[in-house]
């Protein structure tokens, strides 16, 4: 039986401290993720057993800074595929799958860690990703943020998807700017989304702590919730590596 002896779990999930409305009406303010997304909950009492259960999100129009009310599957570290997410875009292929339709084994396995500290403000090209093996989960990171982040060129995204046939793309944010041409007209827009979801390769982001990994190859796992039709789901992404 496999075990965790002499191994450590590294949490690669960005933390969002919940904004909690307490039973007494007081509010514990929370934090937001790198995309300014909150996690909003409110205490409620389960009348059956007197436990407290959190209602998730807010009612429409009741929280000024989140007037939409509900929270989407894209808050914090999450995973996404094409069906229900970008299959409304022109030019994507038939046969795209939803998160719930790909094998569970898509979401865990051997991952290649690509540290791109040497690419300050530069495009990420295939030659920068020589350690990627066919079928890998690929974790991209760098020490940079903002305009200094290296960015994933569209052609490189297609190379990862179709040449290296990667299993999943995980991106540290901040660290790597992984999408380009988001405002371009379809079908020229968002090449990374297109390369990945068009080839049924999940994207998991924003990851944290990838820089903390010591090994170049680790075990990675980020299991989506088992909810059919959910185009993106919150995940707890982890790596397991050997103790040094």
């Amino acid at each position: 039986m496999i075990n965790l002896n002499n191994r450590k779990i590294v949490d690669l999930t960005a933390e969002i401290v919940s904004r909690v409305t307490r039973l007494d009406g007081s509010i514990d303010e929370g934090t937001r993720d790198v995309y300014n997304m909150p996690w909003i909950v409110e205490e409620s009492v389960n009348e059956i057993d007197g436990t407290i259960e959190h209602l998730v999100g807010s009612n429409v129009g009741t929280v000024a800074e989140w007037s939409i009310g509900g929270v989407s599957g894209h808050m914090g570290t999450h995973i996404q595929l094409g069906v229900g997410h970008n299959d409304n875009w022109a030019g994507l292929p038939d046969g795209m799958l939803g998160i719930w339709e790909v094998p569970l084994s898509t979401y865990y396995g051997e991952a290649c860690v690509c540290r791109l500290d040497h690419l300050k403000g530069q495009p990420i090209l295939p030659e920068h990703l020589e350690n990627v093996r066919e079928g890998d989960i690929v974790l991209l990171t760098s020490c940079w943020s903002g305009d200094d982040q290296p960015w994933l060129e569209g052609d490189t995204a297609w190379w990862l998807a179709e040449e290296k046939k990667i299993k999943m793309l995980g991106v540290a944010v901040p660290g790597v700017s992984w999408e380009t041409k988001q405002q371009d007209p379809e079908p020229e827009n968002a090449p990374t989304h297109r390369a990945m979801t068009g080839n049924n390769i999940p994207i998991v982001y924003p990851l944290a702590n990838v820089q903390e990994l010591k090994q170049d190859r680790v075990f990675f796992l980020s299991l989506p919730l088992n909810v059919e039709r959910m185009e993106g789901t919150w995940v707890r992404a982890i790596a397991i590596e050997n103790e040094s």
Partner: protein
Amino acid sequence: MKNFSLDGYRAIDLSPRIKARIHRIDGTIEEGNLDPYGKPWVMQEGVFAGDNSLYTLYSAPADDEVWHQERMSSHHGSHVQGGKGHISHWAGVSPDMKGLWEMPLDTFVGEAAVCNLDHLQPQAISDPSEYPRGEGWHMKSKPGEVRGQEILPDHLDNIRQGDIVLMTSPYEGLERPWLSERTAKWLVEDRKIKMLGLGVPGIEWQYDLKVAAPKNSPIRRILLGANVAITHPLVNIETIKSDRVFYFGLPLNMPRFEASFVRAVAFEEAGE
């Protein structure tokens, strides 16, 4: 030392599949199903103006026919719960109770003992103390009624110290075997388990819910009071062939979230 790998292991999905009920942007509704406790998962579709992609909100419109309010809780579908924020307002609970976010990650990852209690067949009881609940509004059962058996340490002899425990049975309702206070204490104090995962309908563990504190919900108190996380409802435990598996069922990384949705998966060595 070789890297951690699940090559050669078979994944068994322990989270019940929920089909979301979705209100699409064109006004249509795609019907969903319910989790094992009868709870739906309702979503509303929207368009992100930034790139014309679609998203769904975990919420129901005010006039939804299936769910009675806009919001659903953290307890829909498979979820894991800790004590802080969940029962920490109860009289008599330990002040040292932790929230999920304060527990080490290996609480939710690791070797698990599989306890399929299908051999604990229901039987007629001779005394009301032999089952913790009664039919309907009755607090206790009557002699002669067929009820589930008490789960005893003898029935759990494959549990090792520090294990995650996955427990189920094929029995339903009042015929489910039940987790008693003495066995829950044994799990916590003797076996020092990290987490308990419960299959449905399988195990009776939520009883004495309306008894005055501090005697209410004894099993929840014992487990969460000792910072043993509880994950439920789980499915497919009965399909596991081995009595030991490797388990993942991690909460989201949202501090203060008293319970969290999880995807629970067991990995069994192939060939078992």
